[in-house]
């Protein structure tokens, strides 16, 4: 069984600022406290296609193992490694991120896709963020008998975390806005 959900959020900031904030989201110490489930983010690979104006990035994201506490007991691991691939198309002004877990795959598969595009109603000032998440407990794993419950718990946890992520993004955008106007906060 797969549990999937989608979310949408409008940032009242231009696309350039929102995507800049997205890159900075995990680095700021204040954000690190808010996003305490993110333990480490490393850039593994980065390539620029200068003809197309596209920037490709692969990052490793180490997170505190999601879901309720007993999951960590069962899988015996406190941390989970994920890989995030990002393509930024500067010409068409789009940013797409896809994140997937690469450890604990015996038990669970989580995939998250995020897109940042200029908002159709106000493309120069606003940005729309669309997010899709799917969570699947592997049918033959030790977690299978309680898969539905665990998936639900994971969804709740992920939604709490993405709400925190949005707050961090909003704060980062305000900071960048002030910076661009030469005001220090």
């Amino acid at each position: 069984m797969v549990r999937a959900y989608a979310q949408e959020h409008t940032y009242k900031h231009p696309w350039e600022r929102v995507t800049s904030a997205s890159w900075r989201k995990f680095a700021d110490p204040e954000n690190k406290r808010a996003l305490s489930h993110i333990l480490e983010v490393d850039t593994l690979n980065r390539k620029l296609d200068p003809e197309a104006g596209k920037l490709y990035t692969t990052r490793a994201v180490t997170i505190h193992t999601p879901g309720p506490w007993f999951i960590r007991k069962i899988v015996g691991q406190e941390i989970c490694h994920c890989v995030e691939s990002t393509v930024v198309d500067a010409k068409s002004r789009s940013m797409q991120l896809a994140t997937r877990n690469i450890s604990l795959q015996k038990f669970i598969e989580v995939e998250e896709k995020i897109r940042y595009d200029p908002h159709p109603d106000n493309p120069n000032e606003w940005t729309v963020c669309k997010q899709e998440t799917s969570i699947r407990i592997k049918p033959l794993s030790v977690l299978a008998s309680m898969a539905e419950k665990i998936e639900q718990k994971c969804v709740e946890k992920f939604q709490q975390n993405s709400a925190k992520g949005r707050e961090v993004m909003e704060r980062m955008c305000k900071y960048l806005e002030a910076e661009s106007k030469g005001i220090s906060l």
Partner: protein
Amino acid sequence: MGITKREKRSPPSTSPCADLKAAYHNCFNRWYSEKFVKGHWDKLECVSEWQKYRDCLAQHLDDKHLSRFLETEGVADLIDQADSKNPSGAFK
């Protein structure tokens, strides 16, 4: 809940590279905001910062799952897959 949550977390394996990472990210973030999104995408900057950070990662990234991504050319695999399933590039 009656049972104490274990808060023990493994120390991040790449922390020896923290300073080099910060130096690279600062440089990249500046390039991204001030050049890339403003149409100056002819070349990737911060090359020397990137080299130092990557060399450090290559030494300290003990997780095999992750280190293979340091070598891979197919950087945008996940996105490409998503695009081929969904050619308009839009979500369902």
